[in-house]
């Protein structure tokens, strides 16, 4: 049960980090200068082409090592980064690449006139982002982001490989102690399935809410 809690914590954290990176990334890709645009293109391409497992290993070891080296070079003590923080950071980095693409597509789907109208009203870019772009792109982005959330819950299982005790690894340890492998793995599977089904229901509600006032897809 603690394992499930850990899994959910990481999934939520990683999704939030991913959303922040994704929003900035999408903005950078759409409105940034040529250098920023190319850098984000490299980031999304590389992250999406390399298996998550390899990325997690690479970032998990390299990231903690790098931070410690920087800290020692600056004269601070080495810090022991907890698995939770590292897991959130790593998965968030991976999720960021995917959500960049989703959000970029969603922003492109907003009727251009809305953004132009907001500019004509003299809104600052921050206000424009908060009042117009984000709410207007939400209905287009939610299906993609819902997929990403489901992927995030399942990607937390990969952290078992680097030895972070989330649901899958906890299951394996419990199963190893009691020798009842099949029972424990089936139970964990049911737990994951419940998470998926519950979030499917909630995300369906959220999408309906975000689409309020828009013509239904069936009519279009």
């Amino acid at each position, binding site marked *: 049960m603690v394992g499930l809690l850990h899994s959910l914590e990481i999934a939520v954290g990683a999704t939030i980090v991913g959303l922040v990176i994704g929003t900035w990334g999408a903005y950078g890709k759409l409105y940034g200068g040529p250098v920023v645009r190319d*850098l984000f293109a490299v980031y999304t391409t590389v992250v999406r082409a*390399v298996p998550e497992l390899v990325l997690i290993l690479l970032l998990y070891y390299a990231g903690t090592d790098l931070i410690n080296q920087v800290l020692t070079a600056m004269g601070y003590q080495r810090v022991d980064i907890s698995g939770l923080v590292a897991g959130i950071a790593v998965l968030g980095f991976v999720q960021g690449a995917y959500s960049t693409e989703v959000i970029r597509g969603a922003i492109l789907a907003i009727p251009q006139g809305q953004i132009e109208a907001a500019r004509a009203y003299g809104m600052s870019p921050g206000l424009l982002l908060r009042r117009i772009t984000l709410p207007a792109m939400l209905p287009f982005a939610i299906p993609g982001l819902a997929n990403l959330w489901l992927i995030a819950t399942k990607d937390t299982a990969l952290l078992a490989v680097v030895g972070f005790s989330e649901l899958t690894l906890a299951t394996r340890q419990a*199963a190893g102690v009691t020798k009842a492998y099949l029972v424990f793995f089936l139970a964990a599977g049911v737990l994951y*399935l419940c998470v998926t089904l519950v979030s499917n229901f909630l995300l369906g509600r959220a999408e309906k809410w975000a689409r309020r006032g828009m013509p239904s897809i069936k009519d279009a």
Partner: protein
Amino acid sequence: MAGEAAIINTAARASLWLQPHRIVLILIALGLVTSAALFMRWDWLPQYWEMGLMGIWRALWILVVTCVLGFMIAVPVGLAQAAGSIWVAAPAKVFCTIIRGTPLLLQLWLLYYGLGSLFPQYPWIRESWMWPYLRQAWPYGVLALTLSFAGYEGEVMRGAFAGVPKGQLEAARAFGMSRWKIFRRIWLPQAFYRALPTLTGETVLQLKSTPLVATISVIDIFAVSSKVRQDTYLTYEPLLLLALIYMVITGILVFAFSRIERRIPVKIG
């Protein structure tokens, strides 16, 4: 004339692509790569060269086998959901939901540790011809990856089957084709064309799940790089090389699929 225009066009595109900042970025990237090649330790490479090639070969083999088998399961699963009665559609739907709702790592471990620990309890399994295979790890890996691919692709095929225009099928029936012939000549090819772009993405995703089989002791390229790390205590070099290998394979896959996609008629429906 057309040739000249094409040459001018490609030249213009090249100059558009090679803007000054891109050149600087490319130089920086080249500098990073050369410094990585020069200053990091690569002396372990000759020793593990053969093993690495074996690993790549095995990963590709698993990828191809699971994709082909998975697609063969996905077609009936998708068809059942798109056109079957509720007795066929409901189990197919449940299968897809379960596969897509649980992590692949969990499915893999469930099959390997769970089922694998059940089999030795029955003497008749131990005496059967299957036992030498069931004792190894790779059948479980292949089975888990196949089922996972079938689950995801079954959902895609459902949409593809449902998306084939009704008129096409009615026309086929009007020609007096038998049901099997309609399926083979009309329904399946058109659904396949529709599913092809998604199929590319699914195949790349499948490639990215193959390293998971390393966790149940199948020696693929990922397992080789873990072994290098354990033997030499190097952290970055094997992982960086591994990431590069996967990127190259992904690039080749995407290129190959785009070639196939170009061969199919664009105007459908």
